[in-house]
């Protein structure tokens, strides 16, 4: 794990004074954090701006002000396709698969960039999500919520990302899938060396795998802190409950 305060290592993600939103409505206000080689969880209640933060980081909506850098390269307002080419994988919370494509096709569209052979990357995805191997021919639109989330995650992994943006990956999942998914996220970080930015409402589970945490409240981010240092009072304050 890299301590974000260690200035000798270029952070995987650097966000400085980031404000963004939709149209003229600002949702995020002056958010700042860095992510090293770690799992960084962004916690917050509904409407806190978690999805807006990740879609801005993915380049899908423009930043109003501030900057975003991946491994030291400024990508502020770079097209999403360019960010992806720099190694950013993105898994949205909703509509995370292409429903008309089969599972195999959903995975292969993730592998349109990069130079490693598809077969090699697919095998690695199957190692992480073995259940997908038997569902390759299925239409992705017919999968259950948990299966869809696996396909979406697998597709992002096919991009060979160095940074993975996961937007509430366990939202709406059954308790069985929920636990499995958090285990998979930790495994992806551990075995592939991918830096992960994860948004979650489920604070307890997220704190179980995260190295550091930022609480987002009405678009304003807290000072990032070690997951071990998070207290119930801090969360209550952040969630405004």
């Amino acid at each position, binding site marked *: 794990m890299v301590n974000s305060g260690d200035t000798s290592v270029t952070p995987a993600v650097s966000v400085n004074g980031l404000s963004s939103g939709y149209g003229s409505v600002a949702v995020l206000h002056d958010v700042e954090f860095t992510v090293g080689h770690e799992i960084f969880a962004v916690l917050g209640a509904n409407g806190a701006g978690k999805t807006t933060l990740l*879609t801005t980081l*993915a*380049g*899908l909506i423009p930043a109003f002000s501030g900057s975003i850098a991946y491994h030291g390269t400024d990508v502020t307002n770079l*097209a*999403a*396709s360019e*960010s*992806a*080419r720099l190694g*950013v*994988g*993105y898994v*949205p919370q909703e*509509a*995370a698969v*292409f*429903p*008309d*494509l*089969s599972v*195999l*096709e959903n995975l*292969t*569209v*993730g592998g*349109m*960039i990069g130079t490693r052979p598809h077969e090699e990357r697919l095998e690695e995805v199957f190692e992480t999500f073995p259940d997908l*191997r038997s569902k*390759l*021919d*299925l*239409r992705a639109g017919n999968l259950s919520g948990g299966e869809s989330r696996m396909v979406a995650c697998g*597709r992002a992994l096919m*991009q060979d990302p160095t940074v993975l943006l996961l937007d509430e990956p366990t939202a709406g999942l059954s308790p069985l899938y929920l636990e499995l998914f958090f285990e998979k996220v930790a495994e992806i970080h551990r075995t592939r060396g991918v830096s992960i930015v994860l948004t979650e409402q489920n604070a307890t589970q997220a704190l179980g795998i995260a190295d550091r945490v930022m609480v987002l409240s009405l678009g304003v981010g807290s000072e990032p802190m070690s997951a071990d240092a998070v207290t119930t009072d801090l969360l209550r304050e952040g969630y405004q409950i």
Partner: protein
Amino acid sequence: MNLDWLDAFLIFGAFKVIEIMGLGLLVHLQLGLTRVANFGVVGFWGLGLYAFGVAYLKVDWPFGDVYQFLICAAIATIVAAAAGLVVGWLISDLDDDGTLVGTLGFATIVVILATTQQGLTGGALGLGGLGFPYDFGRVKTHEFTWLLITTAVVVLIFVYAWRVHRTPHGRLLIAVGANEALARSLGKSATAARLRMMMVTSGAMGLLGAMHGVMVRSLEINSLDVSVTLAALAALILGGTARVFGAVVGVLLTVALFDIVIQFYIPIPDGWNTQALPVAREAVFGAAIVLMLIFRPQGLLGQMRRPALMRRLHGDW
């Protein structure tokens, strides 16, 4: 070639069937794969028709018939493709409603230009003088040969559409159509993929327009009618927008039914062919669109069969 057994009107009816089938296949790539709702099909087709006609008739080409046709057809294709690129770029940020209005607006501009630029196009009177790029002596032989050549072009369009389904570009188009924001995060430009598709399909529509010009041997403003768009869309929606065979099945059940079966094989009263039947045809096509969208929006052939395709391509993984 002795074609006495063949009715000249039947050749023209078959030509219409083949032509609309080609347009339907191209609309399939736009609407079925990429979800670009092009209501201006007649605009791209008509631009090709008029670009071909004007280039053919207004330029003193120093070549024989074949080369003159090939160059003018290439001009028609390039002009329509360029229009597809520009229109595609203009509508790239619009939603479905905006795309419908934008493409319809483009078709209207083409019709207005064809009507008002009399010096070039002949305006409402039109221009005659287009011809076949060969001379076998008999008009019927010319037309039948042209029907075969057009069929070959439409077969090529079919093969292209068939192959697109099996390529990474095709998968990207389907991804862009289903969820453009997500597709943009895959590392490929969704806009570039859509513009490429618009350019290729619009160019092919222009080529079909040029081939129509050769068959009718004239530029007529009445040919730039909404019925061209309606026929292609009705057929595709009836057959199934997402399937390559959707356009083929749909055209057989609509255009072929009216322009061949009813016109030639059903005993209908004199005069109906020129008056009642065309009106009934439009009404039935419109009704077919409405009924299919209500009761079976995926069309007769249903959704894409990607799982079956994947099994064929990859076998058991």
